């Protein structure tokens, strides 16, 4: 869990400074919309995945760095989203995923 403390706090620091003022519910709602627009076709309507593509609800609170990395750079058949999604949008999707995660 605490394997990459530097990376995690860096990522956390980045989003707290850009969105500390944002209302969390509004952020989750915005994340749901971004997810539905860009991610649902591969990761399932409303995050409901039958697991053939990575089930995003498996992501744990400590994996913000992993999330940032995969979403911006891509991985195998996961396309890179750098330049398409803003940092705020990525953060909102993260909050939406976390709000629906298996492990809160």
């Amino acid at each position, binding site marked *: 869990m605490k394997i990459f403390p530097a990376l995690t706090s860096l990522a956390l620091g980045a989003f707290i400074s850009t969105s500390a003022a944002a209302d969390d519910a509004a952020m989750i709602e915005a994340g749901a*919309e*971004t997810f*539905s*627009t*860009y991610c*649902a*076709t*591969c*990761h*399932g*309507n*409303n*995050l*409901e*995945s*039958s*697991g*053939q*593509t990575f089930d995003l609800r498996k992501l744990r609170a400590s994996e913000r760095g992993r999330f940032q990395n995969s979403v911006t750079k*891509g991985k195998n*058949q*996961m*396309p*890179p*989203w750098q330049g*398409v999604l803003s940092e705020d949008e990525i953060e909102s999707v993260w909050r939406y995923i976390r709000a629906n995660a298996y492990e809160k």
Partner: protein
Amino acid sequence: MKRSSFTAPLYLAGVFTLAGIAGAAAQTTADLNKDQNTPGDVLVYGMGPHGQRYSPLTRINKDNVKRLVPKWSYSMSDSNGAEAFPLVANGMIYTTNHISTVAVDALTGKQVWKVTHDYPPEILRIVCCGIVNRGAAIYEGKIIRSTLDNHLIAMDAKTGKVVWNVQSPGISAETGYSMTGAPLVADGVAVVGVAGAEFGIRGFLEGFDAATGKHLWRQYTVPAAGEPGHETWAGDSFKVGGGSSWVTGSYDPELDLVFWGIGNPAPWNPRGRKGDNLFTNSVFAVRPKTGERVWYYQTSPEDPFDYDAVQTPVVATIKVENKPRKVVMQANRNGFLYVLDAANGKLLAANAYDKMNWADGVDMKTGRPNTTESFKKALAGENVTIWPSVTGSTNWQHMAYSPKNGNLFINVIHVGMTYQAPEPPKNLAMGKPTGNGTVKRTTVYDDPNVLGFLKAVDPMTGKAKWSVPYKSPNFSSTMVTASDLVFTGVMTGEFQALDAKTGKLLWSFQTPSGIVGQPITWEKDGKQYVTIMSGIGGVYAMRSGDPNLVNVPTGASLWTFGLFDK
């Protein structure tokens, strides 16, 4: 850069001239046209240009089908959906996925060649419905396929060597276009469609010279300013109008017409594009040499529900008012089974073949659906419950038609939805998402344990002679033989044979992944074989979250079955 070794024009010209001569004896237009009657090979998508998926073979029959066993299987080394239609020629089976084309020995399953087609990862941002490819065409010794990044590539059928590689002119992933469908070669022209109505494309159908790859024509599905039909789009809405053509069509050599289904308007949210939105959700009949549109028939005007008319129109001569008539039949996503005169597109029948509430029949004079209150409320932005869902009563999975028993064999999706179109989206642009995110919906079931049926349907009435329920809808295509066997695959991996007369399950084999593929049958040295790909993926598996599919393993493979030799 990728494919660099085959891009020098001089070298390319030299190669295709030689290959053209070497392969000229095989898979001619005449061979392709009579494919359905030559079961020693499978040369055309749909098991013949009419797309009937019917085989005259009878060696495997109701009495011995229990002895059907795997002869070999071949790994595609991939975990995405295996939706391709395999071809059989030269003693080899050819198949594809999103990234490779392979040839394997038809009797042993040993790989003969494999070509990999790398593509830029960004293209996957605009893939709406699975990271897939639905197969290749074969013509005069060449295997021809499309790629996600809009290339059409011809390979020497014997060696896999790339003979030509062309890009669809002027389009790109940045503007939302991709290709997943199998080309259809008709009269020497490789007809190809595009995907991207979920990303604001202006759709079209186009033709390439199947010998050289030369681009011959393009027929747009959304009319530009000044063209007929343009007035059916409010304001500038036509600019991102959609109208893809992502599922392969059929061909009638006698009429010299290619029949092709056209996809949904973009965005899904209809409120900013008032009007019929021609020529989205239509069946086209075009001349293969020129692309001239001889007739069209629109199935769902001003569509809020992603009711693509992309199902392959199946050509057959059937009895209409007691007279034989050449028709095209389409089990449309919107829930109606259409029968149209193949020569002129005249509507002959349109009947519901599963539950629907957006329309109450079709006006036989105008050909327009009699839309219900629910439909009108949906257009007005109200929250409504609609059958079928955006996935449709069918999706891309193909039906089969038996000229012997007169029925269509349709894998039906039995799922509804709540639906609401909020304020229409602003800032639409080609290449930006125009699908899922533009409406709000949830899934509705009658019975959570029955989300699909395999039905034997009478074309003229839409009535089912028999109907077999499935826990998840089948996204496999069907195939029917003269021995009255229907073959299909199940999302949880079973490959099945059913009695075409009764629907009784006669045989089932558990493949290692879910099946979303297309069964074919062929013969060699007096023995009949059945071939299909296994490998879950595609739109339903990725998007639905169907609990019945949790933990169904991924992994694409190609399978061939034959009767057990004592």
